């Protein structure tokens, strides 16, 4: 009798330990998961890069007047983009765009973000980038290579 009771007590003690481990693991896992912000920068940088491409290229042909506008006023003005984040969370530009059309490079934003692109494994505290290469027609119907890079930092809100 004594031994059986002792075994039961020991068993319930183990049950308590198992339940506690399960509870702690679940609660901490869920808290860690939900405490991180939702990272939308991959989508945002892709949309940004596509916007720039759609602005510069129409039906596969480069728009020379848009390129001239970019030369004079910058990518943001020529493509009607509002790229200044006024959340008050950041003290510098949160977007970076690099457009390379046949060797002529146009840039907007913080150039420091450029070298961080391509470092997928360490993207936690660095900007997230979207890079694409296209071949498009220019005004004299010859193919030219176009490269676009869109980078979004917004680290405080996304990582």
């Amino acid at each position, binding site marked *: 009798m004594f031994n059986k009771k002792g075994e039961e007590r020991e068993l319930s003690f183990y049950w308590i330990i198992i339940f506690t481990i399960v509870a702690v693991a679940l*609660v901490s896992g869920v808290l860690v998961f939900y405490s991180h*912000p*939702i990272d939308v920068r991959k989508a*945002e940088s892709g949309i940004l890069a596509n*916007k720039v491409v759609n602005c510069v290229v129409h039906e596969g042909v480069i728009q020379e007047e848009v390129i001239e506008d970019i030369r004079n006023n910058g990518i943001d003005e020529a493509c*009607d*983009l509002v790229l200044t984040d006024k959340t008050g969370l950041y003290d510098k530009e949160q977007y970076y765009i690099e457009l390379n059309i046949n060797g002529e490079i146009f840039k907007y934003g913080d150039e420091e973000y450029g070298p961080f692109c391509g470092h997928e494994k360490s993207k936690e505290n660095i900007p997230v980038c979207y890079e694409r290469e296209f071949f498009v027609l220019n005004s004299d119907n010859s193919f030219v290579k176009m490269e676009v890079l869109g980078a979004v930092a*917004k680290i405080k809100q996304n990582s």
Partner: protein
Amino acid sequence: MIFMKNKKGSDIIVGNVVFIILALLFFGLLLLFLMNQSSITRLMEERTAKEIALLLDSAEPGTEIIFDIEEIASKTDDEANAIRIENNFVYVKLKSKEGYKYHFFNSEEINYDFMRIDGRRYLKINVQ
């Protein structure tokens, strides 16, 4: 002797019943916690603001967006002030003090209104 045997049996039953009740209670509380965490207002504010901002970023002029807000509207009494789109920001404020805002870069003119379809609440956005 018969009394002793019955007592032993009832002790085992009571012990098992108590254990099952405690286990159910434990897992019930855990389930409640998990459900509560996935629908906390802070998370809903952030998710909604970012979803709307990305939709607006990718929208071309002439786009009409119908966005289902039934889930978040049920968390507030004043849906008109819960979601606002102003100065290239999407503001979502449910019950938290500050709410959440997210910037979008599309410069097109944006008009929005709240509507109901079959009793369900939607946010209608026109990008012009």
